[in-house]
């Protein structure tokens, strides 16, 4: 696997090549279908890209100790978020559910007990993501957790390009000259959490944490970020990571 963060931005074009490569190698049919569908070319204008907002609720933050509890996704474009095509699954985590995460996600033990294993929903999940550019808020949850879970079940991992709305916020509020100036002035850093970021764009506060609601919130946030700071023609290659 390529250490992507070490690659210069110009080589972001490698995502389609990477997916093509994996498609050829994939042994599991559902993974083969996903990789074959590929992703938009890096020079695709964001306004034309088919997108899907994805959110996972997990039992914790550590990919080695914690597991996925629920998955929410909603397909969208810059113009419209299509709620009618939303998907949501509760899955039985392979590791025990802590009391803390129960209160956090409002998912109960009995719901979990009746829920299927991720393996059962995987074909549907992968089909819903296939061909679309995935949008998440904080990519260090969705991608590694899915990768680990799928590797454990199918023996092959899953990597794909994502647009991370949190890192788009970080580019403005953590990495900019203004942000450095604030740090120098010892001002507290601007929060780039989902609801705080939404607030900056006049988006309403949703009562999280629900995987589908957070996916919707993430999709709305990306629409707002692009409308505010980017042009519709911005190539997806400049936004994904």
């Amino acid at each position, binding site marked *: 696997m390529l250490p992507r963060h070490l690659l210069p931005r110009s080589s972001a074009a490698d995502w389609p090549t990477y997916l093509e490569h994996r498609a050829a190698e994939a042994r599991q049919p559902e993974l083969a279908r996903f990789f074959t569908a590929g992703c938009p070319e890096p020079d695709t204008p964001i306004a034309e890209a088919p997108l899907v907002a994805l959110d996972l609720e997990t039992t914790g933050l550590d990919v080695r100790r914690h597991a996925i509890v629920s998955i929410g996704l909603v397909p969208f474009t810059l113009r419209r*978020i299509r709620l009618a095509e939303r998907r949501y699954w509760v899955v039985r985590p392979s590791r025990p559910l802590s009391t803390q995460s129960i209160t956090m996600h409002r998912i109960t033990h009995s719901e979990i007990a009746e829920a299927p294993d991720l393996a059962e929903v995987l074909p549907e999940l992968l089909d819903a993501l296939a061909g679309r550019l995935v949008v998440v808020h904080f990519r260090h949850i969705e991608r590694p957790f899915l990768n680990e879970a799928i590797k454990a079940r199918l023996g092959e991992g899953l990597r794909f390009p994502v647009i991370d709305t949190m890192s788009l916020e970080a580019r403005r509020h953590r990495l900019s000259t203004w942000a450095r100036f604030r740090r120098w002035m010892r001002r507290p850093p601007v929060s780039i959490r989902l609801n705080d970021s939404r607030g900056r764009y006049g988006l309403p506060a949703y009562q999280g944490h629900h995987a*589908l609601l957070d996916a*919707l919130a993430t*999709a709305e946030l990306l629409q707002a970020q692009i409308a505010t700071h980017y042009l519709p023609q911005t190539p997806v290659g400049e936004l994904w990571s």
Partner: protein
Amino acid sequence: MEVELLEIRQHMGRFPPFDGLSDDLLDDIASQVEVGYFKTGTDILTLDQELHELCYIRSGAVEVYRRNGDLYNRLGEGDIFGHFSLLRNHRVRFPARALEDTLIYFIPEPAFHHLCDTDEHFADFVELGRPRMEAAVEQHKKANDMMITRVRKLLTRYPVMVEATTTVQEAARQIGEAQASAVLVLDAPGDNPRYTFTDSEDRPWQVCGILTDSDFRTRVVAEGLSPDTPVGELIGNRLITIQSDESVHEAMLCMLRNNVHHLPVLHRRRPVGIVHLSDIIRYETHSSLYLVSNIFNQSSAAGLAKLAPDVRAAFVRMVGEGANSQMAGSALSTIGRSFTRRLLELAEQELGPPPVPYCFMVNGSMARNEQTIVTDQDNALILSDDFDAKYHDAYFLALAERVSDGLAACGYTYCKGDVMATNSQWRQPLSVWKHYFSDWIDNPTPERLLHSSIFFDLDSTYGEEAYVEQLQDLVAQKAPASPLFLAAMARNALNRTPPLGFFRTFVMEKDGKQNNTINLKRRGTAPLVDLIRVHALACGSRAQNSFERLDDIGQTQLLAPGVGEKLRYAMELLSMARIRHQIIDIQQERTPDNDIEPENVEDSERHHLKDAFQVLSNAQKFLKYRYPIPARAGRSR
């Protein structure tokens, strides 16, 4: 229910027209919405774009424009737009732009039509203004028993009836036996066919009078009449009756107007019962009737002034029990006239009889029977042409001062424009008044137009009614034949315009400005009254009340079909809103005024008011074209 949609469903459920939807319908809608974000200043809908979705503002604010670029409306969280296009040709008629960063929920067309089909409230809401306004007024009417309940509902028994030759003793016995409080006196058919009927045995009769408990006391016992006196000799020649299908409210007004406590009720010409004041009071506990009789029982101006809080209380009760604006307006006007009359009676007792006959004229809202609790006095004196200022004016000035001061003490503030009989200009003989009126019509300068708009609502409260009638005749004959006057009045009626509507806690003006309050009289009812007056003058109507004027206007071709009805609904809505907010002021222990604060305006009321403003605005635009300045007058505005 899906928990993830709760957020969307709950939000929509807080705003009309979704607030009336069942949870199932709301879930269904929430699951189908599409979401879009619009940065400040970006277009949401462009002119003539094809549209297949209803737009719901989840957050932010949106401005909607007319085709010509004028601001049509400013909308906030929970408002909808695009429904006009969906109901018509799916082309955007009113383009929309984000005034703030805005999140829109788009509701697909099939879901929209499903809602229209399944929910009447929703359908009413998204239809054009008229059905919605109508629905609001109708709904109010339904709640308003007194207006629709027929007098016959109050009758519990047939009236006791005796022949005119019956002795008072026998009549008294029959009343006692029947435990009634009055008896109708019958005679052979005579001079008045209105009161003739045939009984069950085919004998013809005429109702010629009524004898009440108190008549037995005051006319028989107190006068020492013989018990053998025939009742026919006791009854007067004035018989006030009411038809059984008239409303209870009308019966109440009839009693007020004639100062009687018993009303024979006729079904066509046959007597079917007698209603007594107490029947109505039992039915409708509030009572402006009590108040009026209390007014006439006061023996001093100070005593009258003490009744001011009762007026307020009667007003609050009346509206609380569902009176509409016409009922409230005529009841308050009747109360105001009663104060005026009593003050005149008291003044005459003090000053002696008038040296020449006079008529005490009221103008403005009291003349139109449209008073509210916030009102000033507009009045004038029309004197006999025998009036000689040198000898008589001191008397009439003193009379006018007593009335004016007395009214002020009762809460009817002095007229800021000095339109009061205390002003010598408005204390003149009939011939001078005729000259005034003719001059105002013939030479409409701005000052005279102002006078016309005040004095051309006129009615008598006391004295020689014929004087006012002559002036009313003069106006009704002269005005329709004076196109320049009508044109000038029409332009004058456009001085005050309604706002566009409401936006959050502000009043939206047409130029996009926002205000914290709106004077609903100045920006609503008054311009509407002005506008109706112009049409009424044009058609020679002698009516004073705006609703009655609309009846007269409806007999002509002055307005396009249906416009009269719209104006009627707008008038009722604006008047009721004004009244309701005065009640809120009273209940919150503030001095009632004509201002309303948008934060006190409920969502549904906002929409109705906006519709009414729209009706007024359209009618104002039409007025200019209806009464153009005649070419030969060669006058620039």
